[in-house]
Protein backbone atom coordinates (compact mmCIF):
# COMPACT_ATOMS: atom_id res chain seq x y z
CA UNK A 1 0.00 0.00 0.00
CA UNK A 2 2.78 2.39 1.04
CA UNK A 3 4.85 1.48 -2.01
CA UNK A 4 1.88 2.10 -4.33
CA UNK A 5 1.19 5.44 -2.64
CA UNK A 6 4.81 6.50 -3.16
CA UNK A 7 4.68 5.51 -6.81
CA UNK A 8 1.46 7.48 -7.37
CA UNK A 9 2.85 10.55 -5.55
CA UNK A 10 5.99 10.42 -7.65
CA UNK A 11 4.01 10.17 -10.86
CA UNK A 12 1.79 13.08 -9.83
CA UNK A 13 4.81 15.25 -9.07
CA UNK A 14 6.37 14.33 -12.39
CA UNK A 15 3.20 15.31 -14.23
CA UNK A 16 2.98 18.62 -12.36
CA UNK A 17 6.61 19.41 -13.17
CA UNK A 18 6.04 18.62 -16.85
CA UNK A 19 2.92 20.79 -16.95
CA UNK A 20 4.84 23.67 -15.31
CA UNK A 21 7.68 23.27 -17.82
CA UNK A 22 5.22 23.34 -20.72
CA UNK A 23 3.42 26.41 -19.32
CA UNK A 24 6.67 28.34 -18.85
CA UNK A 25 7.90 27.35 -22.28
CA UNK A 26 4.66 28.53 -23.92
CA UNK A 27 4.71 31.76 -21.95
CA UNK A 28 8.30 32.44 -22.81
CA UNK A 29 7.94 32.02 -26.56
CA UNK A 30 5.97 35.17 -27.15
CA UNK A 31 6.21 38.65 -25.73
CA UNK A 32 2.93 40.37 -24.94
CA UNK A 33 3.23 43.92 -26.23
CA UNK A 34 0.27 46.25 -26.71
CA UNK A 35 0.45 49.28 -29.01
CA UNK A 36 -1.99 52.08 -28.24
CA UNK A 37 -2.74 54.33 -31.24
CA UNK A 38 -5.14 57.16 -31.86
CA UNK A 39 -5.90 58.51 -35.34
CA UNK A 40 -2.89 56.64 -36.70
CA UNK A 41 -0.42 58.04 -34.14
CA UNK A 42 1.21 55.66 -31.65
CA UNK A 43 0.55 57.01 -28.14
CA UNK A 44 2.26 54.34 -26.10
CA UNK A 45 3.75 50.88 -26.31
CA UNK A 46 3.26 48.63 -23.27
CA UNK A 47 5.13 45.42 -22.41
CA UNK A 48 2.30 43.57 -20.69
CA UNK A 49 4.66 40.89 -19.32
CA UNK A 50 6.28 43.45 -17.01
CA UNK A 51 3.07 44.86 -15.52
CA UNK A 52 2.70 44.04 -11.84
CA UNK A 53 0.29 46.76 -10.71
CA UNK A 54 -2.89 48.20 -12.13
CA UNK A 55 -2.54 51.53 -13.91
CA UNK A 56 -5.34 53.67 -15.31
CA UNK A 57 -4.99 56.66 -17.63
CA UNK A 58 -7.06 58.74 -20.04
CA UNK A 59 -6.31 59.32 -23.73
CA UNK A 60 -7.93 61.77 -26.14
CA UNK A 61 -9.50 65.19 -25.88
CA UNK A 62 -12.72 65.97 -23.97
CA UNK A 63 -15.61 64.62 -25.97
CA UNK A 64 -13.43 61.85 -27.45
CA UNK A 65 -11.83 60.25 -24.42
CA UNK A 66 -11.13 56.66 -23.42
CA UNK A 67 -9.98 55.48 -20.02
CA UNK A 68 -7.47 52.66 -20.46
CA UNK A 69 -6.53 50.19 -17.76
CA UNK A 70 -3.33 48.13 -17.72
CA UNK A 71 -3.07 45.32 -15.21
CA UNK A 72 -1.46 41.89 -14.90
CA UNK A 73 -4.69 40.52 -16.44
CA UNK A 74 -4.21 42.57 -19.61
CA UNK A 75 -5.12 45.89 -21.19
CA UNK A 76 -8.50 47.30 -22.12
CA UNK A 77 -10.81 50.30 -22.21
CA UNK A 78 -12.78 50.53 -18.97
CA UNK A 79 -14.79 53.63 -19.84
CA UNK A 80 -15.34 55.87 -22.84
CA UNK A 81 -17.50 58.80 -23.85
CA UNK A 82 -18.42 57.18 -27.17
CA UNK A 83 -22.10 56.29 -27.63
CA UNK A 84 -21.76 52.61 -28.54
CA UNK A 85 -19.28 51.44 -25.84
CA UNK A 86 -18.05 48.67 -28.14
CA UNK A 87 -14.48 49.27 -26.93
CA UNK A 88 -15.54 48.81 -23.29
CA UNK A 89 -17.38 45.58 -24.14
CA UNK A 90 -14.12 44.07 -25.43
CA UNK A 91 -12.76 43.69 -21.90
CA UNK A 92 -9.14 43.22 -20.78
CA UNK A 93 -6.89 41.22 -23.09
CA UNK A 94 -3.25 40.23 -23.54
CA UNK A 95 -3.23 39.05 -27.13
CA UNK A 96 -4.79 39.36 -30.59
CA UNK A 97 -5.35 38.66 -33.36
CA UNK A 98 -8.00 41.40 -33.42
CA UNK A 99 -7.32 44.85 -31.91
CA UNK A 100 -9.47 46.55 -29.28
CA UNK A 101 -11.06 49.44 -31.15
CA UNK A 102 -13.04 52.59 -30.39
CA UNK A 103 -14.19 53.76 -33.81
CA UNK A 104 -15.80 57.07 -32.78
CA UNK A 105 -12.60 58.15 -31.01
CA UNK A 106 -10.17 56.66 -33.57
CA UNK A 107 -8.50 54.55 -30.86
CA UNK A 108 -6.97 51.13 -31.34
CA UNK A 109 -4.98 48.79 -29.11
CA UNK A 110 -3.09 46.19 -31.12
CA UNK A 111 -1.27 43.15 -29.78
CA UNK A 112 2.07 41.69 -30.81
CA UNK A 113 1.17 38.29 -29.43
CA UNK A 114 -1.14 36.16 -31.49
CA UNK A 115 -3.93 34.16 -29.94
CA UNK A 116 -2.57 31.16 -27.96
CA UNK A 117 -4.87 28.90 -29.95
CA UNK A 118 -3.08 29.95 -33.14
CA UNK A 119 -5.87 31.97 -34.70
CA UNK A 120 -5.05 34.18 -37.67
CA UNK A 121 -8.21 36.28 -37.33
CA UNK A 122 -11.48 36.44 -35.43
CA UNK A 123 -14.82 37.10 -37.08
CA UNK A 124 -17.42 38.90 -35.01
CA UNK A 125 -20.93 40.22 -35.31
CA UNK A 126 -20.06 43.36 -37.22
CA UNK A 127 -21.85 42.64 -40.48
CA UNK A 128 -25.34 44.10 -40.97
Amino acid at each position, binding site marked *: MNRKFLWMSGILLLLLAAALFWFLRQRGTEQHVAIISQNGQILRTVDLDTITETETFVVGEPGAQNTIQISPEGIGVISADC*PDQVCVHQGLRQHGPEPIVCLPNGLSIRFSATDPSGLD*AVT*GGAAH
Partner: protein
Amino acid sequence: MKSVILCVILCLSLVLSGCSAGQAAPSATPSTAAEIDPTQAQSTELFAMDTVMTLTAYGPNADPALQAAAEEIRRLDKLLSISSEAGEILPLNQSGQGELSDETAALLQRALEVSRETGGLFDCTIGPVMDAWGFPTQNYQVPEGGLLQSLLARVDYRQVALSGHTVTLPKGVEIDLGGIAKGYTSDQIMDVFAQSGITSGIVSLGGNVQTLGRKPDGSLWRVGLQDPRNPDQTFAVVEVEDQAVITSGGYQRYFQEDGVTYHHIIDPRTGYPADSGIISATIVSADGTLADALSTALFIMGPEEAETFWQAHQDRFDAILMTDSGQILVTAGLAQRCQITTDDAVRVIQ
Protein backbone atom coordinates in the same frame (compact mmCIF):
# COMPACT_ATOMS: atom_id res chain seq x y z
CA MET B 1 2.16 -1.01 -12.44
CA LYS B 2 3.70 -1.29 -15.89
CA SER B 3 0.53 0.01 -17.46
CA VAL B 4 0.58 3.02 -15.12
CA ILE B 5 4.16 3.83 -16.10
CA LEU B 6 3.31 3.47 -19.79
CA CYS B 7 0.38 5.79 -19.33
CA VAL B 8 2.59 8.38 -17.61
CA ILE B 9 5.17 8.22 -20.40
CA LEU B 10 2.43 8.79 -22.95
CA CYS B 11 1.04 11.73 -20.97
CA LEU B 12 4.49 13.27 -20.63
CA SER B 13 5.12 12.89 -24.35
CA LEU B 14 1.91 14.75 -25.08
CA VAL B 15 2.59 17.53 -22.57
CA LEU B 16 6.20 18.07 -23.58
CA SER B 17 5.41 18.13 -27.28
CA GLY B 18 2.90 20.91 -26.62
CA CYS B 19 -0.08 19.03 -28.04
CA SER B 20 -3.42 20.62 -27.40
CA ALA B 21 -6.44 18.36 -27.26
CA GLY B 22 -9.05 19.45 -29.73
CA GLN B 23 -6.72 21.54 -31.84
CA ALA B 24 -7.23 20.78 -35.50
CA ALA B 25 -4.29 19.19 -37.22
CA PRO B 26 -2.63 21.40 -39.81
CA SER B 27 -3.27 20.46 -43.38
CA ALA B 28 -0.63 18.29 -44.95
CA THR B 29 -1.33 19.51 -48.46
CA PRO B 30 1.54 21.67 -49.68
CA SER B 31 1.01 24.77 -51.75
CA THR B 32 3.12 27.27 -53.60
CA ALA B 33 2.70 29.62 -50.65
CA ALA B 34 5.06 27.36 -48.69
CA GLU B 35 7.95 28.96 -50.55
CA ILE B 36 7.20 32.40 -49.14
CA ASP B 37 9.42 33.68 -46.39
CA PRO B 38 7.00 34.24 -43.48
CA THR B 39 9.21 37.04 -42.18
CA GLN B 40 8.18 39.05 -45.23
CA ALA B 41 4.77 39.75 -43.67
CA GLN B 42 3.55 43.30 -43.76
CA SER B 43 0.46 44.60 -41.99
CA THR B 44 -1.41 47.85 -42.03
CA GLU B 45 -4.38 49.19 -40.12
CA LEU B 46 -6.79 51.87 -41.29
CA PHE B 47 -10.17 53.31 -40.37
CA ALA B 48 -12.69 53.27 -43.21
CA MET B 49 -16.35 52.37 -43.83
CA ASP B 50 -17.10 53.06 -40.16
CA THR B 51 -14.81 50.28 -38.98
CA VAL B 52 -11.17 49.43 -38.42
CA MET B 53 -9.47 47.32 -41.05
CA THR B 54 -6.38 45.16 -40.65
CA LEU B 55 -4.63 44.00 -43.82
CA THR B 56 -1.75 41.49 -43.91
CA ALA B 57 0.17 40.32 -46.96
CA TYR B 58 3.23 38.09 -47.32
CA GLY B 59 6.05 38.17 -49.83
CA PRO B 60 8.46 40.67 -51.37
CA ASN B 61 5.61 42.71 -52.89
CA ALA B 62 3.66 42.98 -49.63
CA ASP B 63 4.34 46.67 -49.04
CA PRO B 64 3.18 47.99 -52.44
CA ALA B 65 0.26 45.54 -52.35
CA LEU B 66 -0.93 46.96 -49.02
CA GLN B 67 -0.62 50.51 -50.31
CA ALA B 68 -2.66 49.62 -53.39
CA ALA B 69 -5.25 47.88 -51.19
CA ALA B 70 -5.54 50.93 -48.93
CA GLU B 71 -6.10 53.14 -51.97
CA GLU B 72 -8.79 50.77 -53.21
CA ILE B 73 -10.54 50.86 -49.83
CA ARG B 74 -10.56 54.66 -49.79
CA ARG B 75 -11.90 54.72 -53.35
CA LEU B 76 -14.74 52.30 -52.56
CA ASP B 77 -15.54 54.07 -49.29
CA LYS B 78 -16.07 57.28 -51.21
CA LEU B 79 -17.94 55.59 -54.07
CA LEU B 80 -20.38 53.53 -52.01
CA SER B 81 -20.87 55.56 -48.84
CA ILE B 82 -24.40 56.69 -48.16
CA SER B 83 -23.12 60.06 -46.97
CA SER B 84 -20.35 60.87 -49.47
CA GLU B 85 -21.02 63.87 -51.72
CA ALA B 86 -18.34 62.53 -54.06
CA GLY B 87 -19.97 59.10 -54.32
CA GLU B 88 -22.90 57.81 -56.34
CA ILE B 89 -25.38 56.75 -53.65
CA LEU B 90 -26.08 60.06 -51.89
CA PRO B 91 -26.91 61.99 -55.11
CA LEU B 92 -29.13 59.10 -56.22
CA ASN B 93 -31.05 59.04 -52.94
CA GLN B 94 -31.44 62.83 -53.00
CA SER B 95 -32.77 63.06 -56.54
CA GLY B 96 -34.53 59.69 -56.84
CA GLN B 97 -32.92 59.07 -60.20
CA GLY B 98 -29.42 58.68 -61.52
CA GLU B 99 -26.90 57.10 -63.82
CA LEU B 100 -24.51 54.75 -62.08
CA SER B 101 -21.03 53.66 -63.08
CA ASP B 102 -20.50 50.09 -64.28
CA GLU B 103 -19.16 49.09 -60.90
CA THR B 104 -21.92 50.59 -58.75
CA ALA B 105 -24.65 49.36 -61.08
CA ALA B 106 -23.21 45.84 -60.94
CA LEU B 107 -23.05 45.92 -57.14
CA LEU B 108 -26.62 47.23 -56.88
CA GLN B 109 -27.68 44.46 -59.23
CA ARG B 110 -26.06 41.91 -56.94
CA ALA B 111 -27.73 43.45 -53.88
CA LEU B 112 -31.11 43.21 -55.61
CA GLU B 113 -30.44 39.58 -56.59
CA VAL B 114 -29.62 38.58 -53.01
CA SER B 115 -32.65 40.54 -51.81
CA ARG B 116 -34.80 38.52 -54.19
CA GLU B 117 -33.20 35.19 -53.25
CA THR B 118 -33.72 35.83 -49.55
CA GLY B 119 -37.29 37.01 -49.96
CA GLY B 120 -36.33 40.51 -48.87
CA LEU B 121 -34.71 39.54 -45.57
CA PHE B 122 -31.59 41.19 -46.94
CA ASP B 123 -32.93 44.49 -48.26
CA CYS B 124 -30.77 47.31 -49.56
CA THR B 125 -33.59 49.83 -48.94
CA ILE B 126 -33.63 49.36 -45.14
CA GLY B 127 -31.78 52.69 -44.62
CA PRO B 128 -34.69 54.89 -43.42
CA VAL B 129 -35.53 52.40 -40.64
CA MET B 130 -31.87 52.17 -39.58
CA ASP B 131 -31.81 55.97 -39.44
CA ALA B 132 -34.89 56.02 -37.20
CA TRP B 133 -33.11 53.75 -34.71
CA GLY B 134 -30.03 55.98 -34.90
CA PHE B 135 -27.58 53.21 -35.77
CA PRO B 136 -25.69 55.09 -38.53
CA THR B 137 -25.21 58.18 -36.36
CA GLN B 138 -25.09 56.44 -32.96
CA ASN B 139 -27.83 58.78 -31.71
CA TYR B 140 -29.76 55.76 -30.51
CA GLN B 141 -33.49 55.84 -29.83
CA VAL B 142 -36.47 53.50 -29.95
CA PRO B 143 -38.77 54.80 -32.71
CA GLU B 144 -42.52 54.94 -32.13
CA GLY B 145 -44.50 52.10 -33.69
CA GLY B 146 -46.44 54.46 -35.96
CA LEU B 147 -43.25 55.96 -37.32
CA LEU B 148 -41.81 52.54 -38.01
CA GLN B 149 -44.91 51.47 -39.90
CA SER B 150 -44.77 54.54 -42.12
CA LEU B 151 -41.07 54.02 -42.74
CA LEU B 152 -41.56 50.34 -43.59
CA ALA B 153 -43.71 51.42 -46.54
CA ARG B 154 -40.48 52.84 -47.97
CA VAL B 155 -38.54 49.59 -47.44
CA ASP B 156 -38.91 47.22 -50.39
CA TYR B 157 -36.14 46.33 -52.82
CA ARG B 158 -38.78 45.64 -55.50
CA GLN B 159 -39.41 49.37 -55.70
CA VAL B 160 -35.88 49.94 -57.06
CA ALA B 161 -35.98 50.15 -60.85
CA LEU B 162 -32.57 49.37 -62.33
CA SER B 163 -32.32 49.39 -66.10
CA GLY B 164 -28.79 49.19 -67.40
CA HIS B 165 -27.04 51.97 -65.51
CA THR B 166 -30.19 53.99 -64.82
CA VAL B 167 -31.85 53.79 -61.43
CA THR B 168 -35.21 55.22 -60.51
CA LEU B 169 -36.49 55.31 -56.93
CA PRO B 170 -40.01 56.15 -55.76
CA LYS B 171 -40.26 59.13 -53.41
CA GLY B 172 -38.83 58.31 -50.02
CA VAL B 173 -37.07 55.10 -51.06
CA GLU B 174 -33.32 55.10 -50.47
CA ILE B 175 -30.53 52.72 -51.36
CA ASP B 176 -27.93 51.70 -48.78
CA LEU B 177 -25.22 49.27 -49.91
CA GLY B 178 -23.71 49.15 -46.41
CA GLY B 179 -24.87 45.56 -45.92
CA ILE B 180 -22.83 44.36 -48.85
CA ALA B 181 -20.08 46.97 -49.35
CA LYS B 182 -17.51 45.53 -46.94
CA GLY B 183 -17.84 42.07 -48.44
CA TYR B 184 -17.41 43.56 -51.91
CA THR B 185 -14.40 45.53 -50.67
CA SER B 186 -12.67 42.45 -49.28
CA ASP B 187 -13.29 40.71 -52.63
CA GLN B 188 -11.64 43.66 -54.35
CA ILE B 189 -8.67 43.60 -51.96
CA MET B 190 -8.08 39.96 -52.85
CA ASP B 191 -7.94 41.00 -56.52
CA VAL B 192 -5.54 43.83 -55.72
CA PHE B 193 -3.31 41.44 -53.77
CA ALA B 194 -3.32 38.90 -56.60
CA GLN B 195 -2.53 41.57 -59.20
CA SER B 196 0.40 42.65 -57.02
CA GLY B 197 1.83 39.14 -57.03
CA ILE B 198 0.66 38.24 -53.53
CA THR B 199 -0.31 34.59 -53.02
CA SER B 200 -0.80 34.65 -49.25
CA GLY B 201 -2.78 37.31 -47.38
CA ILE B 202 -5.59 37.89 -44.91
CA VAL B 203 -7.76 40.91 -44.15
CA SER B 204 -10.23 41.73 -41.42
CA LEU B 205 -12.60 44.57 -42.18
CA GLY B 206 -14.04 45.06 -38.71
CA GLY B 207 -14.43 41.32 -38.24
CA ASN B 208 -15.32 40.54 -41.87
CA VAL B 209 -12.42 38.20 -42.67
CA GLN B 210 -11.25 37.19 -46.13
CA THR B 211 -8.22 35.12 -47.09
CA LEU B 212 -6.03 34.74 -50.15
CA GLY B 213 -4.36 31.38 -50.70
CA ARG B 214 -2.92 29.62 -47.69
CA LYS B 215 -0.53 30.70 -44.94
CA PRO B 216 3.13 30.98 -45.92
CA ASP B 217 3.85 27.58 -44.35
CA GLY B 218 1.21 25.96 -46.57
CA SER B 219 -1.36 25.42 -43.83
CA LEU B 220 -4.93 26.71 -43.87
CA TRP B 221 -5.90 30.01 -42.24
CA ARG B 222 -7.50 29.55 -38.81
CA VAL B 223 -10.38 31.95 -38.18
CA GLY B 224 -12.04 32.06 -34.77
CA LEU B 225 -15.76 32.77 -34.35
CA GLN B 226 -16.53 35.16 -31.52
CA ASP B 227 -18.88 33.72 -28.89
CA PRO B 228 -21.96 36.00 -28.79
CA ARG B 229 -22.49 35.13 -25.11
CA ASN B 230 -18.92 36.00 -24.19
CA PRO B 231 -17.25 38.09 -26.90
CA ASP B 232 -13.85 37.70 -25.21
CA GLN B 233 -13.94 34.04 -26.22
CA THR B 234 -14.42 32.10 -29.43
CA PHE B 235 -16.79 29.14 -29.78
CA ALA B 236 -15.44 27.70 -33.02
CA VAL B 237 -12.48 27.72 -35.35
CA VAL B 238 -12.86 27.28 -39.09
CA GLU B 239 -9.98 26.53 -41.46
CA VAL B 240 -10.13 28.17 -44.87
CA GLU B 241 -8.23 29.12 -48.01
CA ASP B 242 -9.37 31.63 -50.66
CA GLN B 243 -12.58 32.23 -48.73
CA ALA B 244 -14.38 34.91 -46.76
CA VAL B 245 -15.64 34.28 -43.22
CA ILE B 246 -18.25 36.87 -42.29
CA THR B 247 -20.46 37.00 -39.20
CA SER B 248 -23.62 38.82 -38.19
CA GLY B 249 -24.53 39.03 -34.53
CA GLY B 250 -26.37 41.37 -32.25
CA TYR B 251 -23.69 41.58 -29.57
CA GLN B 252 -21.33 44.24 -30.95
CA ARG B 253 -23.52 47.11 -32.08
CA TYR B 254 -26.44 47.65 -29.73
CA PHE B 255 -27.88 49.97 -27.14
CA GLN B 256 -30.03 49.53 -24.08
CA GLU B 257 -33.09 51.50 -23.06
CA ASP B 258 -35.31 50.79 -20.05
CA GLY B 259 -33.46 47.53 -19.53
CA VAL B 260 -34.12 46.28 -23.06
CA THR B 261 -31.27 45.60 -25.51
CA TYR B 262 -31.75 46.68 -29.12
CA HIS B 263 -29.20 45.43 -31.66
CA HIS B 264 -28.45 46.70 -35.15
CA ILE B 265 -29.79 43.92 -37.37
CA ILE B 266 -33.26 45.07 -38.29
CA ASP B 267 -35.88 42.68 -39.62
CA PRO B 268 -37.34 44.40 -42.71
CA ARG B 269 -40.70 42.72 -42.02
CA THR B 270 -41.18 44.33 -38.61
CA GLY B 271 -38.77 47.26 -38.41
CA TYR B 272 -37.50 45.92 -35.08
CA PRO B 273 -34.23 44.13 -34.26
CA ALA B 274 -34.42 40.54 -35.54
CA ASP B 275 -35.41 37.98 -32.92
CA SER B 276 -35.29 34.78 -34.96
CA GLY B 277 -33.60 32.44 -32.51
CA ILE B 278 -30.16 32.83 -34.16
CA ILE B 279 -27.66 34.87 -32.15
CA SER B 280 -24.68 34.43 -34.48
CA ALA B 281 -24.64 33.67 -38.21
CA THR B 282 -21.31 33.05 -39.93
CA ILE B 283 -21.07 32.53 -43.68
CA VAL B 284 -18.04 30.92 -45.35
CA SER B 285 -17.83 31.47 -49.09
CA ALA B 286 -15.36 32.23 -51.87
CA ASP B 287 -17.67 35.17 -52.63
CA GLY B 288 -17.20 37.83 -49.94
CA THR B 289 -20.01 40.00 -51.31
CA LEU B 290 -22.47 37.12 -51.04
CA ALA B 291 -21.18 36.15 -47.58
CA ASP B 292 -21.72 39.68 -46.28
CA ALA B 293 -25.33 39.82 -47.46
CA LEU B 294 -26.21 36.26 -46.42
CA SER B 295 -24.84 36.62 -42.89
CA THR B 296 -27.52 39.27 -42.34
CA ALA B 297 -30.24 37.32 -44.11
CA LEU B 298 -29.64 34.04 -42.25
CA PHE B 299 -29.47 35.86 -38.91
CA ILE B 300 -32.97 37.20 -39.62
CA MET B 301 -34.32 33.91 -41.06
CA GLY B 302 -33.98 31.80 -37.96
CA PRO B 303 -32.64 28.24 -37.79
CA GLU B 304 -35.30 26.30 -39.70
CA GLU B 305 -35.54 28.65 -42.66
CA ALA B 306 -31.74 29.07 -42.74
CA GLU B 307 -31.32 25.30 -42.95
CA THR B 308 -33.73 25.08 -45.88
CA PHE B 309 -32.06 28.03 -47.58
CA TRP B 310 -28.61 26.42 -47.30
CA GLN B 311 -29.90 23.14 -48.68
CA ALA B 312 -31.10 25.01 -51.77
CA HIS B 313 -27.85 27.01 -52.20
CA GLN B 314 -25.17 24.73 -50.74
CA ASP B 315 -22.92 25.05 -53.77
CA ARG B 316 -22.40 28.74 -53.01
CA PHE B 317 -21.72 28.94 -49.29
CA ASP B 318 -21.48 27.19 -45.93
CA ALA B 319 -22.61 28.42 -42.54
CA ILE B 320 -22.12 28.11 -38.80
CA LEU B 321 -25.10 29.25 -36.77
CA MET B 322 -25.59 29.54 -33.02
CA THR B 323 -29.12 29.54 -31.63
CA ASP B 324 -30.34 31.28 -28.50
CA SER B 325 -30.71 27.86 -26.87
CA GLY B 326 -26.97 27.28 -27.27
CA GLN B 327 -27.12 24.84 -30.15
CA ILE B 328 -24.54 25.14 -32.94
CA LEU B 329 -25.55 24.26 -36.49
CA VAL B 330 -22.78 23.53 -38.98
CA THR B 331 -23.47 22.88 -42.66
CA ALA B 332 -22.05 19.65 -44.04
CA GLY B 333 -19.48 21.38 -46.26
CA LEU B 334 -17.68 22.66 -43.17
CA ALA B 335 -17.95 19.60 -40.97
CA GLN B 336 -14.33 18.56 -41.62
CA ARG B 337 -12.92 22.07 -41.34
CA CYS B 338 -14.77 23.41 -38.30
CA GLN B 339 -13.75 22.76 -34.72
CA ILE B 340 -16.19 23.62 -31.94
CA THR B 341 -14.30 24.77 -28.85
CA THR B 342 -17.19 24.88 -26.36
CA ASP B 343 -19.39 22.20 -24.81
CA ASP B 344 -22.46 23.31 -26.76
CA ALA B 345 -24.56 20.79 -28.65
CA VAL B 346 -23.64 20.58 -32.33
CA ARG B 347 -25.74 19.42 -35.24
CA VAL B 348 -24.46 19.04 -38.79
CA ILE B 349 -26.97 20.17 -41.41
CA GLN B 350 -27.05 17.72 -44.34
